[in-house]
């Protein structure tokens, strides 16, 4: 606490959140599936760093635990599962999208501005050093959501979902210095199970349609 003044600390937190947002855009601009997973790992690492920074600045120790869990679950285990899925189902390296990359980027830019406008009335009410990150967190959630809509493959939808979760985690840290530890543990467990289920579901999809393109699901209705 003595090392950094609050001001510098809050700027560093802002910087961390900005880096998170940057990786979001990198994922949107990326056309290769495995690179998307790598970028997600990078994002999770940034998230863990930002969270530990908050923990260090505020002295709230359970955030450290959450940060460590982030590394373990999101930067190691989940990417492993995803890579296995990619290998097994032999997904084409190029992504297929409903919205092309430049348009997607522009939409995401608009989402960020939207997020800032929505949070603008709330931000000045906060007193925490992380208050500015709330807007970025909301932006990341929105972009994650957009990714789930815009990409066709099941695996990329998982990534969109995970990005959303990263945004939520950042939001929780920003708005309330993290959730109670038990809630966070629950969330991580959910994530893990969710990813596993989608992984298995991708396998089934592959078996049924020879593709993991979820838009093929429309052929199920009769």
């Amino acid at each position, binding site marked *: 606490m003595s090392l950094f003044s609050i001001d510098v600390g809050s*700027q560093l937190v802002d910087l961390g959140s900005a880096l998170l947002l940057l990786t979001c855009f*990198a994922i949107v601009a990326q056309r290769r599936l495995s690179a998307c997973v790598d970028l997600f790992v990078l994002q999770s690492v940034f998230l863990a760093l930002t969270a530990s920074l908050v923990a260090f600045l505020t002295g709230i120790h359970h955030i450290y635990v959450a940060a460590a869990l982030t590394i373990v679950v999101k930067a190691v285990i989940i990417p492993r599962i995803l890579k296995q899925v990619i290998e097994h189902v032999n997904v084409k390296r190029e992504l297929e999208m409903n919205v092309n990359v430049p348009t997607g980027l522009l939409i995401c830019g608009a989402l960020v501005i939207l997020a800032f406008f929505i949070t603008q009335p709330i931000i000045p009410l906060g007193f925490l050093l992380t208050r500015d990150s709330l807007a970025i967190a909301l932006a990341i959630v929105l972009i994650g959501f957009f990714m789930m809509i815009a990409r066709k493959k099941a695996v990329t939808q998982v990534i969109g979902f995970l990005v959303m979760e990263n945004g939520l985690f950042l939001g929780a840290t920003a708005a309330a210095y993290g959730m109670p530890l038990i809630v966070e543990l629950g969330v991580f467990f959910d994530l893990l199970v969710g990813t596993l289920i989608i992984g298995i579901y991708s396998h089934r999809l592959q078996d049924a349609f020879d593709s993991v393109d979820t838009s093929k699901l429309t052929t199920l209705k009769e």
Partner: protein
Amino acid sequence: MMLQAITLVVAQAIVLLAISPFLVGLIRKVKARFQCRRGAGVFQPYADLAKLFRKQPVISTTTSWIFTATPYILFASTLSAGLLVPTFISQTPMNFAGNIIALVYLLALGTFFLILAGLDAGSAFGGMGSSREAIVASLTEPAMILSIFAIALTAGSTNLSTIVHKTALMEGIVTDPSPHLMALAALCIVALAETGRVPVDNPATHLELTMIHEAMVLEYSGRYLALVEWAAGLKLAVFLTLIANVFAPWGIATTLTPAAMGIGLVTYILKIAGLAMLIGTLECMFAKLRLFRVTDLLGVAFILALLGLVFFYILRG
């Protein structure tokens, strides 16, 4: 006063002219090293230029005066643009002559004539190069203006010398790193696109499928080619200087004492040599993008610059 100003301008011109072939040589050397070759010496481009100047030029019979005038116009506009950017002293005498928008448009003047020269020879190569240069330039410009604006906001000025001088003296310095970071990232992508480096263009290629800049200047030879090559080197130097001094003006001479200027010169050379080596490394790490994938990259640059702006207003608002 007048005399001092002229001396400083001339000194800056000499520094830029002298260092630009070195940067090109350095990038080539780094690339060669990564490819496990020894490569030519870093001073090879100087010898190339000297030789080209002494060679007899061949001019196509189909061309008009545009073709012969272009190398001079290109050289003049690029060097003039260079004079607007502070190199080793933070307060260039040319500060008032043009701000960063003038710099963008000076470079555009060169691009315009180069596009014309590419068309002038009448071969398909030149036209192809011009056409591709046109699309790359059109996508780069908006990102460039927006990133410039984000930088100008944090420094409270659009005049390059003022930005650099203030930042160097920590006056009005960026109180928030995030917008600056975004603008830096955007400007780096823009610089790669504008100077025709991988992943947008490959200066080492002579394959019609991949050439952009090289295709436009394919018909040049002798002293015309020398000027065009030198101008390309200058443009690289201008962008590297811009990035180095706007974002990291450390060591730049803020006063006109000989000691400060000496330190400024040495740190300046070190900084841009470092950046050049970084470019060389990047060129070995990435492949050239397909022309129609360049839009993705420049789209990222545009969004980054926009975010820089948003961050500035919201986080500090």
